């Protein structure tokens, strides 16, 4: 009964409880975010084991520093930011180029019904995104895969909203050019 009620609480309310009395509730936060964060990290790193390590390390860092989190702000942006930083550290260490996942799906005006065509498009998109600098591909991933708002992307990447809009706009143009070239 209590467990059900706790699950209905907002992230920020749960964090408040974890900080003040019940650390066990942190499991709800982990459950809520692990899949999304794993997908996000894997989109950046493209390595499931390393992505799992990044997410695990991020949850631990978030827990250790939970008292520095401002509950008036969105927890989701905060935890995504931590994962972003951890992923960047891994990428810097490995100097590995990023790519995109197989199931990536961009919003499109085109009505694609045929699976074969869809797969072909996804493969093309993957190739295009792989050639794109992370400066542009990451906002695209956050916007279209993670379905974050411009404001959230701005919080996660610590760049002004105008810059987010510009990068996404440029990324779309870049994507078009890269895809046409391919």
């Amino acid at each position: 009964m209590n467990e059900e009620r706790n699950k209905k609480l907002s992230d920020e309310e749960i964090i408040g409880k974890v900080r003040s009395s019940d650390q066990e509730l942190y499991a709800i936060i982990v459950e809520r975010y692990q899949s999304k964060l794993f997908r996000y990290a894997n989109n950046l790193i493209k390595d499931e084991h390393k992505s799992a390590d990044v997410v695990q390390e991020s949850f631990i860092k978030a827990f250790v520093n939970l008292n520095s989190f401002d509950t008036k702000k969105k927890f989701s942006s905060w935890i995504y930011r931590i994962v972003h930083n951890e992923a960047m550290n891994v990428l810097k260490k490995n100097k590995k180029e990023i790519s995109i996942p197989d199931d990536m799906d961009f919003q499109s005006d085109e009505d694609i019904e045929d699976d074969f065509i869809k797969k072909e498009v996804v493969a093309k998109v993957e190739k295009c995104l792989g050639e794109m600098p992370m400066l542009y591909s990451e906002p695209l991933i956050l916007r279209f895969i993670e379905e974050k708002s411009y404001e959230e992307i701005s919080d996660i990447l610590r760049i002004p909203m105008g810059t987010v809009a510009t990068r996404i706009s440029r990324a779309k143009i870049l994507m078009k050019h890269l895809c046409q070239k391919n």
Partner: protein
Amino acid sequence: MSKELKNIKESVMGKIHQGKVKMRPRIYFVMGSVLTFVGLVSSVLISVFLIGLMRFSLRAHGPMGEYRAEQLLTSFPWWSPAVAILGLVVGIWLLRQYDFSYKLDYKIIVVVFVAVVFSAGWVLDMTGLNEALTRRGPMQGMMRQYLEENNIQPEFGAGWRGPRGLRTIIE
């Protein structure tokens, strides 16, 4: 993928249960913020004063280039840039420690810091506030020692003649 996810939850909660991972107390972050603020403010103030001291040193030795350069090299307080750089490094280290989730562009911080210090130093010098401070404030002893060591007689006793008075007397 599901196996990986299961491991994440088990591992994170396991470490919390075993006490391997502990939440830092709130006071840690409060103290961190206070220290960062105090450190940065002190660093800016010291650096601004040192900029003023450098300009004063340049002016005090007159217009002869060679002599001035020589004087600058021999009597320049070399510890001052070291202190300023140390302050900056400590400030950035504190920011990294207490604001761990932020990915700060340290190049921008350094550029902004140096710009702020030089602009503030220039503004203080133009308004004459630094001269007033060196005569009355806590830096008076330091400035007097500097003047004595370098045999400079600025006639402090002659009276304050406006914001640029000291400069007029020396030059």
